[in-house]
């Protein structure tokens, strides 16, 4: 695939260098701060389970209690594992703490607490490791999809018990990856709901139990089909780190996880997001999970032609942050989308140029290719046509993961029949023209090459400016998705703290040691 655009390797190296320069201050920030959700994630890994009768998880109650007593800046691990000596069971400790029966302190001699914390964290990570090994085993047994791109389908009934049969039906009809969309409100909840749920709006709550139920159902179907069907959810929103842990514990295979989506589209505080982000990616790295970044979203608010280079910039940043957090290239489901107004002249060739640029910039990443949404209308006949051209662009540019577009995009969350029509569309395009990339050779110096070079050039200019002026300022200025998000605003800021000198986090320590 590589080489169709004649990209100059020196220019590409320069782009990466600039991305690193722009990203490093944010990494430094992330390394020197913690958040309530990072701490809760640690406790989840350490084995705290369940929720109080109001549905508030014990991890939340426990972290709140610790913070109330000693603040967040030391991390909760030392206070908690120090206190654990007197309780034995960590969930029991959480319950007592919630009842106000525990007083936490930062132990002055922290050796014992550290040792216990590391032991618990090790046990948690060992569970994650086992699930990863299990995934490898099952893929070996049942096999990977026979074709690229993998076919990625969304399920979104709001009810896990309706989702399961729909997901199974979709897998039987050809889906390689199932994503269960979350309920609209969840990303702003500062806790993770518990148990099996049936009442989401336009999506189903992400809970550990729902993860487990769906993974088990898909294992059944994978076995039946002789093909390992992957499961995706979202490590996004205020509980991003905890979602990452839950995904690792329940053998999810991919997670939507973007460095800026929460900032831009959920108005979550930038610092909160970057801190949560780094931790969640470290966990994903360990769990062997493929992340999906969210550059597609920018193109729903910004113009996909004008703002094409912001996608490239964001991809390079996402890559830098991912590498820094320990993710390997095959785990980088870098996102981009087919969102150009179909009335724009040469729109399809522009899409090809953009998609090919991503392909050639990230040759080893399993790129995720997102379908048209913004310019889908209630004209479902036209919608199915546009989705066909999206599928074709994906095949012609060697995309890795194809999120299947629905003709009813502008109307409803997908119906059963929409999914079937969409899969027929994909099957036709891949079967009839899946190898057309062999005959697709953009002319040297022609429209497609010129456009790709232009976008890369604009991306480098922008990265240059960001590197000088800081990424946080760029975000505040509306650089991405034309959303302005200052670093001192947004949700969840009160759950962030700079590390004290004695900050301790056994999970980070283990993850960074490995």
């Amino acid at each position, binding site marked *: 695939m590589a080489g169709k655009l004649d990209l100059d390797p020196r220019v590409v190296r320069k782009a990466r260098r600039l991305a690193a320069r722009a990203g490093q201050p944010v990494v430094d920030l992330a390394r020197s701060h913690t958040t309530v959700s990072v701490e809760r994630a640690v406790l989840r890994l350490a084995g705290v389970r369940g929720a109080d009768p109001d549905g508030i998880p014990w991890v939340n109650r426990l972290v709140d209690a610790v913070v109330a007593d000693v603040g967040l800046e030391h991390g909760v691990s030392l206070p908690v594992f120090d206190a654990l000596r007197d309780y034995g069971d960590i969930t029991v400790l959480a319950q007592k703490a919630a009842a106000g029966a525990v007083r936490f302190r930062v132990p002055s001699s922290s050796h014992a607490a550290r040792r216990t914390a590391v032991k618990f964290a090790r046990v948690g990570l060992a569970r994650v490791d086992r699930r990863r090994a299990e995934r490898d085993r099952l893929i070996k047994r049942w096999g990977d999809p026979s074709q690229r791109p993998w076919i990625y389908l969304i399920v979104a*009934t709001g009810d896990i018990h309706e989702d399961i049969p*729909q997901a199974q039906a979709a897998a039987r009809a050809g889906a390689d990856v199932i994503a269960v969309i979350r309920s609209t409100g969840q990303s702003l909840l500062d806790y993770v709901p518990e148990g099996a749920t049936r009442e989401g709006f336009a999506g189903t709550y992400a809970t550990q139990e729902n993860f487990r139920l769906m993974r088990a159902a898909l294992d059944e179907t994978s076995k039946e089909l002789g093909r390992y069907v992957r499961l995706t959810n979202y490590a996004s929103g205020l509980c991003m780190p905890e979602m990452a842990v839950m995904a690792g514990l329940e053998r999810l295979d991919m997670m939507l996880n973007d460095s800026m989506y929460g900032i831009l589209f959920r108005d979550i505080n930038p610092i909160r997001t970057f801190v949560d982000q780094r931790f969640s990616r470290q966990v994903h790295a360990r769990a062997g999970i493929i992340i999906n970044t969210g550059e597609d979203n920018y193109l729903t608010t910004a113009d996909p032609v004008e703002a094409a280079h912001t996608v490239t910039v964001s991809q390079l940043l996402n890559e830098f942050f991912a590498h820094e957090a320990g993710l390997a290239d095959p785990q980088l489901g870098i996102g981009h989308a087919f969102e150009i107004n179909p009335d724009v002249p040469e729109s399809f060739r522009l899409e090809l140029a953009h998609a090919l640029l991503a392909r050639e910039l990230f040759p080893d990443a399993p790129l995720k290719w997102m379908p048209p949404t913004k310019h889908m*209308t*209630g*004209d*479902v006949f036209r919608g199915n046509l546009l989705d066909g051209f999206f599928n074709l662009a994906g095949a012609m540019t060697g995309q890795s993961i194809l999120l299947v577009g629905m003709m009813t995009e502008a109307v409803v969350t*997908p*119906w*059963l029949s929409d999914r079937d029509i969409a899969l027929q569309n994909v099957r036709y395009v891949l079967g009839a023209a899946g190898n057309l990339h062999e005959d697709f050779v953009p002319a040297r110096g022609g429209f497609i090459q010129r456009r790709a070079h232009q976008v890369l050039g604009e991306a480098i200019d922008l990265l240059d400016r960001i590197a000088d002026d800081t990424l946080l300022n760029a975000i505040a200025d509306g650089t991405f998705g034309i959303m302005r998000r200052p670093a001192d605003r947004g949700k969840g800021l009160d759950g962030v703290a700079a590390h004290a000198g004695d900050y301790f986090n056994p999970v980070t320590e283990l993850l960074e040691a490995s």
Partner: protein
Amino acid sequence: MTIVRPYGDTTGDGMVQLSFTLPIPYDKRAEGAALQLAAKMGMDPAMLVHSRQMGDGFTFFVVYGRVRHLVDTEQVQVVERDFPLLSAKEVNAAIKRGLRRRLSVVGACIGTDAHTVGIDAILNLKGIAGEKGLESYREMAVLNMGSQVSVPELVEAAREARADAVLVSQVVTQRDAHLHNTRALSAAFREALPAGRRPLLIAGGPRFDELMAGELGVDRIFGRGTTPREVASYLVHAVVEGTR
């Protein structure tokens, strides 16, 4: 289960999709008119999701919504296969045993219809969907007259061939051409031959309503996706076993 509703993404949601054109230019009132039609069709609520004016005086609409109607699967009327599906061997054996002569079949596209692919699929050796056509049955004598055959020619040929069954195909349906032609066929045979000597009349084509056989004066109608074996089995049932 006997009562069901349309299914969008949740059991019982009743969701359907509808599209149509109204001969009025686009404006708010036209949208209201479209919703009125949807309401009359039983959609409630109906969402008008697309409208587009075409030329000066027409607007195309797409509507999504819930219908209140229930579907009772026990009340469904269909022409169920009321005869056993036989293998070619069984068909041949039954004819040999029952008639002691070859079963004579005459087929044609009548009227101005020239779509022979369907009738050829039933009659010719090549067949369709992996099944060979009636010509391949040792115990059948098949005359395929081709396309645009007039009814009098067909009656004459049937008489000459002492046809046990006459098979006609009708694919063009605009202005109900298929219904007119089939009625003309049955009337001509009724006129030309006494009841006892009249061949079995079979019509086929993708847009027929199989329930209309009686009304059109034929013995049986075969619709979309018919295979030669079904027709052969029916012939045994109706001609050889005389159960028509």
